[in-house]
């Protein structure tokens, strides 16, 4: 239905469009054609219906230019007022129609890798360690509306892959693995153990566990003779089962040892040739004339023979060894425990440990051929699945887990379990599902899953992975329910993690992210511009934005507020007294500050090394606040007449005024310069000044309309009067940041709705966010 309406819409206006096109041909394309491209604009592109839609942004630009009278330029213009009206009428209604129609298009949803700061916060969320590994990464580029998180630009080059691999390598050194407890991460890095070391450790571990079952003074030398006496007593008294408990208490012999001893010393037990010789004296002890001393002696002799065999074994030739080995094993067997016995003897935890060691050893020794392969797999699979789930930010497929487990077993048998675990960690952290934000694709305009929604929300509002609550709601498919979604967005905005919006969205939009590394200010002239001061400037802007977000205040406070946040250094910088040393809210008594335009961050990044630049400041306002950038300076600008510039008497304002005499320059500079001039009371570092080079400051900016903007408060009023442009530009920026892509023509519908919602809801920040989050684009993928 909507598509049909859209078609109708296109058809109807294409009829009305031909007079408009004639008008363009008549008045505009002489300059704005592909080989001329004045103002970087080509107006021959309106060829078919779709071209109007696709160039929605340009239509608005034309409308503004023609309506304000700045285009066509006076000296070339033969455009009558009737013609002008017909153009603006047509454009006005077209813009309205196109901008209030949803076409239900998702737009490109390319997979994109994490930005450097998302990488760090994601590693932190997965490992619990703040490793700040992205310090070693190449800087990110920005795309779309100027944000680092733009999907078009976030690919991986060979250099970056190497950096990711090196970072994953570091993460792996912080990882530990235990077949029972799974993966953990620790601040202290550790090297992996080799296969040989691991096997030795397993041996030691097993022994340690078993040792607990034996008396402290246990040795076969001491226990074997005692056992023989005990068995003899049992035999002597008619082999009655009820005697057993008395006997093993009397001789202090473990009942299992006794049981096996009885078995071994019974005549029916198969014994080797030599041990039969050794044991004969024991059998010959006469029961009716039992002589305890004799019995002791016989037992001791037997034990000595056993110990001698143990010692002799290495010297005996291979072919003659077997009888001795049988003997030794038989005796050893008496004093070891079967699995069944172990279960009843030690607690479950320890038995598991023991079993694990046994299994691990066997898997290391035999790999996929190990008889314990599947029990090993059962053990490690949950750990592997949970690690993958955390790293991929959603559950892996069963197939992926099975494959990963199989590879884990293979690498375990090749390199030992410790290396296998580290390799698995490295592999996980260079997996595209970790490095990239990944959504499963199958078709056009498909609704995203709840997990994907959780991820989109958390990377939008928090620049990191979804928290437990989001994941839980996603796993129950609750998150996408409108009321729950709204409630979660509210919660997320209030959460302290939403400071990411200030640190990343606002810092990039309002460009204060440049201040920390800004090195354009002359160090000789302005030694007071220290790194610390720069950091404070950044913090003032960030905290102000964060305050608006967390308290869901009006976004107009970005432009004008009666408060700001300062620490003692910035107070001194601004000449505002009192207060704490740390950052705190300051109510402003005069109109010299308040809002981004009074922030030192903005005022400094728009200065040149030695002086302020009204051009850069004005341009910044057009670019970042009003969203009406002027084109770049045209090629082959006429230089100003030499004598005029050289005469030093000219103030900057006069110089620029001359500049505007040039028809080439005027079009743009009459928009830029007046805005910048209003801020002349603020010096290179944003400090208030009453004079510049001993002359009083003139902070009036004369607009094309002959109206004058006076100082900062005049500028704020001017922007407030043009708040539609400001709100629209901000909405456009937020939309682009949320979606991680540039704005397309079909997105203006959402952006217009964002502006509408802002206006209806006291300009609260959240109203704009709800609009984005509920947009077709945010909830679908391609």
């Amino acid at each position, binding site marked *: 239905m909507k598509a049909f309406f859209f078609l109708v819409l296109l058809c109807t206006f294409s009829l009305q469009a031909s007079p408009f096109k004639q008008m363009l041909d008549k008045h505009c394309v002489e300059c704005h054609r592909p080989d001329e491209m004045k103002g970087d604009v080509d107006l021959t592109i309106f060829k078919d219906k779709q071209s109007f839609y696709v160039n929605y942004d340009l239509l608005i630009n034309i409308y503004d230019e023609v309506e304000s009278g700045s285009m066509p330029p006076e000296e070339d213009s033969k455009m009558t007022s009737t013609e002008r009206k017909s153009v603006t009428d047509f454009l006005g209604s077209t813009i309205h129609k196109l901008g209030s129609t949803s076409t239900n298009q998702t737009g490109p949803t390319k997979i994109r890798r994490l930005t450097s700061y998302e990488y760090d916060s994601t590693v932190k969320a997965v490992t619990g360690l703040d490793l700040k590994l992205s310090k070693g990464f190449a800087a990110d580029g920005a*795309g779309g509306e100027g944000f680092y998180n733009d999907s*078009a630009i976030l690919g991986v080059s060979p*250099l970056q*892959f190497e950096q990711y691999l090196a970072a994953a390598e570091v993460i792996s050194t912080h990882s530990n693995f235990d077949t029972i407890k799974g993966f953990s991460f620790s601040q202290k890095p550790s090297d992996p153990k080799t296969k040989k070391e691991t096997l030795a450790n397993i041996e030691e571990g097993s022994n340690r566990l078993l040792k607990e079952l034996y008396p402290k003074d246990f040795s076969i030398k001491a226990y074997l003779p005692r056992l023989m006496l005990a068995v003899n007593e049992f035999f002597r008294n008619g082999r009655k089962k009820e005697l057993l408990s008395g006997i093993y208490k009397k001789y202090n012999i473990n009942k299992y040892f006794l049981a096996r001893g009885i078995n071994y010393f019974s005549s029916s037990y198969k014994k080797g040739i030599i041990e039969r010789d050794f044991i004969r004296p024991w059998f010959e002890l006469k029961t009716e004339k039992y002589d305890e001393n004799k019995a002791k002696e016989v037992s001791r002799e037997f034990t000595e023979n056993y110990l001698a065999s143990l010692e002799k074994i290495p010297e005996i030739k291979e072919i003659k060894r077997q009888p001795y080995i049988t003997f030794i094993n038989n005796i050893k067997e008496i004093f070891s425990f079967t699995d069944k016995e172990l279960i009843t003897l030690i607690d479950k935890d320890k038995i598991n440990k023991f079993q694990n060691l046994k299994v691990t050893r066997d898997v290391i020794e035999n790999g996929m051929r190990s008889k314990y392969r599947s029990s090993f797999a059962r053990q490690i699979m949950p750990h592997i699945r949970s690690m993958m789930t955390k790293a991929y930010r959603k559950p892996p497929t069963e197939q992926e887990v099975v*494959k990963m487990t199989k590879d884990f077993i293979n690498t375990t048998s090749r390199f030992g379990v410790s290396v296998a675990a580290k390799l698995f960690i490295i592999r996980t952290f260079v997996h595209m599902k970790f490095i990239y934000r990944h959504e499963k694709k199958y078709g056009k305009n498909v609704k995203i899953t709840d997990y994907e929604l959780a991820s989109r929300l958390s990377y939008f509002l928090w620049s990191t992975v979804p928290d437990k609550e989001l994941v839980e709601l996603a796993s129950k498919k609750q998150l996408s329910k409108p009321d729950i979604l709204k409630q979660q967005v509210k919660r997320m905005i209030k959460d302290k993690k939403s400071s990411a919006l200030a640190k990343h969205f606002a810092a990039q939009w309002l460009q204060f*992210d440049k201040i920390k590394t800004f090195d354009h200010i002359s160090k000789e002239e302005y030694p007071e511009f220290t790194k610390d001061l720069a950091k404070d400037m950044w913090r003032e802007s960030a905290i102000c934005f964060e305050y608006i977000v967390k308290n869901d205040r009006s976004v107009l406070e970005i432009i004008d507020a009666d408060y700001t946040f300062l620490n003692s250094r910035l107070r001194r910088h601004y000449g505002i007294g009192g207060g704490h040393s740390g950052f705190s809210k300051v109510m402003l008594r005069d109109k010299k500050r308040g809002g981004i335009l009074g922030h030192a961050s903005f005022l400094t990044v728009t200065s040149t090394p030695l002086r302020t630049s009204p051009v850069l400041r004005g*341009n910044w306002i057009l670019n970042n606040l009003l969203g009406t950038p002027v084109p*770049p300076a045209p*090629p*082959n600008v006429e230089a100003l007449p030499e004598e005029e510039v050289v005469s030093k008497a000219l103030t900057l304002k006069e110089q620029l005024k001359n500049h505007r005499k040039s028809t080439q320059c005027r079009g743009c500079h009459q928009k830029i310069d007046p805005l910048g001039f209003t801020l002349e009371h603020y010096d290179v570092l944003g400090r208030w000044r009453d004079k510049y080079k001993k002359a009083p400051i003139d902070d009036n900016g004369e607009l094309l309309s002959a109206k004058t903007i006076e100082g900062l408060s005049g500028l704020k009023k001017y922007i407030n009067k043009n708040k539609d442009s400001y709100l629209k530009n901000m909405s456009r920026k937020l939309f682009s940041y949320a979606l991680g892509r540039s704005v397309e023509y079909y997105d203006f519908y959402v952006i217009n709705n964002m502006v509408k919602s802002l206006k209806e809801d006291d300009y609260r920040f959240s109203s704009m966010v709800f609009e984005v989050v509920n947009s077709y684009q945010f909830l679908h993928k391609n």
Partner: protein
Amino acid sequence: MKNLNRRTVLRGLGGLTLGLPWLEAMGQSSFSPKNVRLAYLFFPNGVIPEHWTPGRGKLDKLPKTLTPLEPVKNMVNVHTGLTHPTKYSHVPGVASFLSGAQIKKGVGELGVGKSADILASEHLGKYTSFSSLELSLVGTLGSGLEHGYIHTMGAYISWLDKRTPLPRERVPLNANHRLFKGARKSVRTPEETDSLLDYVKEDVIAMKRSLGKEDLYRIDQYFSSIRSLEKRILKATKGDMPLPRDARKPQSGIPKDVRVYSDLMLDIMVLAFQTNRTKVASLMLGLAWGNGLDFGFLGVQGDIHINSHHNNDPTKIKYTEAVTRYHVSVYSRFLQKLQAVKEGDKTLLDNSLVLIGSDLWDGNRHSSDQRAILVGGKGGGSVSTGNHIVHAQGKPLNNLYVGMMKTAGCPVSKFGNSTGALI
């Protein structure tokens, strides 16, 4: 199957067939790279034409800005009159410098395009450890837009495709390690590394199943990146030559003195060429507009971009000319360093083509109807040098890029709006 051994191929494929760029290496047995190295240098803000343009024909008395070329002037050609389809300057002027594309306003795909160095490296880089090397003295311009152009465009000359700028090494020691220290991490045994990379590749291939068509190029990109590392680890390229004994290891960090800094970067490029680690390199000496480098040693004050729009102010002209002359001196030093390395009966400079250029022609006037271009080296012997070549207005700069690639043996006949090849 002669070019790559069987194990390499099997590993690379992971048992599956992917239509990935590196596979071309197997098919093109007819392609034999000549022993030519290509280097591309960039400096910002154009030139002052009257101090740049020498007399037509054989280079004799050099204009002021080009005086540093004196020791190598018989090895250089000055090209004037070459035009570029991107008219607007600075930010798009940087991105389009080597990509030769007409960059239009409007965001999204960026529309920059594969740059000439990267296209060349796809052919020349198959048999070297690194297909190309990207270096820069300067960082990026950060986030944001200017006049509707993304800042990113003003920070990169080397582009993998229309939307992906290639990050550069900025720290000399890091570049040195990457090139010469060996690809293997010391804690891993060779078997462990091999096994890891095999698995990592399998994972990437498996991604194919879950992604849309338009995302496949990301997988190709990722896969090629892994291959690029693996190529070095497996030593599939036998061409690496040992580092010369007297090669110095650079200091750590970024030197504050621009002269020391640029010299270190030049040394790295010379060594990379000399030891055959790569045949293609790019180096950015600045960004669109200023770049925060300190030119105090030239007696220059203020921002170099603001100075470049000098409006005929003599002081600003002096500053701008001095900075541009300094950039030419860096270029000249590079040529001299290449010339000092013997390769058989030739020098490394004889076997190279080294281009330097800018985003503009006359920086003051933002004019970009032509670009300031120098090309040094003999390209293996076939290029005659020592001239100022004045091109008819309208001849595309892209013809020169095609000419350089052809001279190096790349089977390339068309690049952007090129109408032929010139060198």
